[in-house]
């Protein structure tokens, strides 16, 4: 495989992860601070005259699962059940995905977390025998309604898959494909602009700018996955779903993906399925724990990993499962 023979030099343009991680941690702190002030300090319209009272550090119990009051979630899933034929894979799950927050779905294999993720852009439609009940809203709009075009939905709710799956086409074509089929660029220059912007956001531009015509499959695994992320952002989605995006990558490539998730947060609502609990802890602000098709616990990541309410969550994250 050529991709394994790719020398490390292709990665050397990027700062070594340790510095990236340090920067990430600093940014995370800032991010968390920003996040917390974002709704504790946010003056309610009515309370605008008395900001001092609002500034009082109120604990936010209502924030654990419901999200901040007065802030509509980007996506809302309500009583979702999924059946594969007779087998029920997901039981009555309700959850909200917010903008500028990363929501992680964790749980043992077969717990339904990937199935659930695929409900948000109706990828389960492509599986014969799969049946979804319940309601999912995108900005308050039912995504399963007749008015919602599934093609548009998938453009608005992008997806990154477990195995890096670039098209066997050039790097440029990989990123340009989405904008092209949706008619997002009239002129070639516009398209080139979108491709460059997307690759930059995905942190891949510097590594590939001189070889856009080369095949996307010739990149290393981590680069391929970032190419797939660039491909997803090229159509300017509002939500990005990631299905174990780093499970096939080595630790350094994984760190880069995680760093990227951090950077993308704020611009997109992100939901990520991961087997790696440390990864969920590192990249997410909200964590949902699934077990046997049920949503066991959903809350702030910092709470889930220090003080989960449910014993099953505790057993899983401390390594006592099964």
């Amino acid at each position: 495989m050529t991709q394994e023979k790719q020398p490390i030099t292709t990665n050397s343009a990027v700062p070594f992860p340790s510095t990236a991680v340090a920067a990430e941690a600093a940014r995370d702190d800032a991010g968390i601070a920003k996040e917390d002030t974002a709704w504790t300090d946010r003056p309610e319209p009515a309370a605008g005259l008395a900001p001092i009272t609002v500034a009082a550090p109120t604990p936010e119990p209502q924030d654990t699962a419901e999200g901040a009051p007065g802030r509509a979630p980007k996506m809302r899933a309500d009583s979702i059940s999924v059946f594969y034929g007779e087998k029920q894979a997901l039981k009555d799950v309700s959850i909200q995905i917010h903008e500028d927050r990363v929501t992680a779905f964790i749980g043992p294999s077969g717990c339904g977390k990937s199935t659930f993720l695929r409900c948000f852009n109706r990828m389960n439609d492509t599986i014969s025998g799969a049946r979804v009940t319940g309601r999912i809203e995108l900005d308050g709009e039912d995504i399963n309604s007749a008015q919602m075009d599934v093609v548009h939905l998938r453009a608005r709710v992008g997806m990154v898959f477990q195995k890096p799956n670039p098209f066997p086409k050039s790097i440029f074509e990989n990123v340009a494909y989405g904008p092209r089929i949706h008619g997002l660029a009239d002129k070639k220059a516009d398209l080139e602009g979108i491709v460059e912007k997307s690759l930059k956001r995905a942190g891949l531009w510097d590594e590939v700018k001189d070889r856009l015509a080369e095949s996307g499959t010739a990149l290393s695994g981590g680069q391929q996955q970032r190419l797939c992320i660039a491909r997803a952002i090229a159509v300017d989605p509002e939500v990005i779903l990631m299905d174990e995006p780093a499970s096939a990558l080595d630790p350094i490539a994984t760190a880069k993906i995680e760093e990227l998730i951090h950077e993308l947060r704020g611009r997109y609502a992100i939901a990520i399925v991961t087997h790696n609990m440390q990864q969920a802890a590192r990249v997410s602000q909200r964590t949902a724990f699934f077990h046997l098709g049920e949503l066991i616990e959903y809350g702030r990541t910092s709470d889930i990993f220090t003080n989960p309410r449910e014993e099953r969550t505790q057993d899983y994250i401390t390594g006592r499962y099964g």
Partner: protein
Amino acid sequence: MATHGHTLKAFDEDLDRLRALISEMGGLAEHGIGEAMRCLVDRDVDGAHRVIEEDKKLDALETETEKRVVQLIALRAPMAGDLRDVVAALKISGVVERIGDYAKNIAKRVAILEDAGKIEPLSLLPEMARIAAGMVHDVLNAFVNRDAEAALRVCDRDKAVDDFYDSVFRTLLTHMMEDPHSIRHATHLLFVAKNLERVGDHATNIAEMVYYAATGRHMSERVKGADPLAG
């Protein structure tokens, strides 16, 4: 708490070893207080020296605990309850080491008080020491068993130690006023009482750590109103 062990058994072994270390430290500290008090009552200067020597063991155990905690965090990446346990173990080892220092401090005063005559409060101090040492013993048992209720009960007993301290303080004060010659000895005894009172406070401190490790909540969040520290 979780009734079954980790999938990775070595993780359980590491945690058990850590708990055993804390337990051992607690035993040493408890024994140190008891011995120091016995030496004080019996005027046993040699025994007091032994107590002072034994404190070095506690220091070594504290270092060992710290090393193990760092290793465990690095190698096992503990989460949730495990993480709280490990962090609590680290903090508790520091506090127990302080308790050992108090025992050493009491033992150091044995030589000074060797020639002291009969001072009445001396009869109160062993009982006070018994309660304080008992608190240390029970709170460390609570840690090993992850028993939040036991930790709460330990807190309740701090009041008794404080009461003892008050009464010893008053008695010694009276003594000093009545007999200025006794001031030197009485002051030392006052320090002993103060040390024991601090041991009780530290045990209460450990109880709070145990409570957080076991439940994930801080004690102050739970026992508002009936705060044992308010007394």
